[in-house]
């Protein structure tokens, strides 16, 4: 029996179109067209490395995440400064702007539903102690 894989992370949202557009613009899914696949009219899938993000329109979540720190999505990028510049150009909301920390560059932004999203470039900050 094979080890399980994290096939996808589902984001429940009251506004799936808005969230899909934000992730497509902000973080460049693997799809060569840079977008999401429509699974159903209210569900969209985008691949980000070894797993997918499923954006699912649901009626059992509010407009804004009441507990944004409970689950944080950590995205690794090759060039955090370029990514941060791009995100600033989009006018995203930052919880913590890109900063050098032990082990790399880290920044935390807030998606339109209030979920926390961290971008990371390892190996660019101070060496781990």
């Amino acid at each position, binding site marked *: *029996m*094979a*080890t*399980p*894989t*994290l*096939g*996808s*992370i*589902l*984001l*429940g949202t009251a506004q799936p179109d808005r969230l899909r557009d934000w992730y497509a613009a902000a*973080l*460049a899914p*693997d799809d*060569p*067209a*840079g977008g999401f*696949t429509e*699974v159903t009219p209210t569900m969209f*899938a*985008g*691949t*980000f*490395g*070894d*797993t*997918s*993000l*499923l954006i699912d329109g*649901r009626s*059992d*979540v*509010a407009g804004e*995440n*009441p*507990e944004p*720190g*409970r*689950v*944080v*999505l*950590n*995205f*690794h*990028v*090759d*060039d955090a400064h*370029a*990514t941060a510049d*791009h995100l600033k150009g989009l006018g995203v909301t930052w919880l913590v702007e890109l900063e050098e920390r032990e082990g790399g560059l880290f920044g935390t932004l807030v998606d339109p*539903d209030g*979920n926390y999203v*961290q*971008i*990371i470039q390892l190996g660019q900050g101070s060496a781990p102690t």
Partner: protein
Amino acid sequence: MVADPPVPESPATVRRRARLRAITLESRAPDRAAAWYREALGLSDDAPLLTVGGVELRFTLATCDAPSAVEPARIVLNFHVDDIRAAEGRLIALEAVWARELERTRWGIIGTVLDVDGNYVQIVEPAPDSPPCLQRNEEHR
């Protein structure tokens, strides 16, 4: 009708391409939560990192007040398995609380449980004809 040729990706797009490499879960008892996931997913105790198909699960001490997720449908982890009955057996042995018992859907066989912090966790045995993005990724087992 002839399809449009693919549009080449710009270097800037490729350079900022993001990979979802880790999920951080807040918990009032991070060690207990990590142990629960190891048991639930049948992972070894030996590996220092809890990695599932190329994605690391990290656990930190909770700063929120609610002991259990207020909106468990907000973020759901979907673990793909090749033997859904074995996965179900592990969850039954853990006495997991089922939000939805195993059910055959158009995407495959799916069951939903609550983890120790009240987050929804789904086990999925994908259907052979489900979309590629919902299939099991075998490259990073």
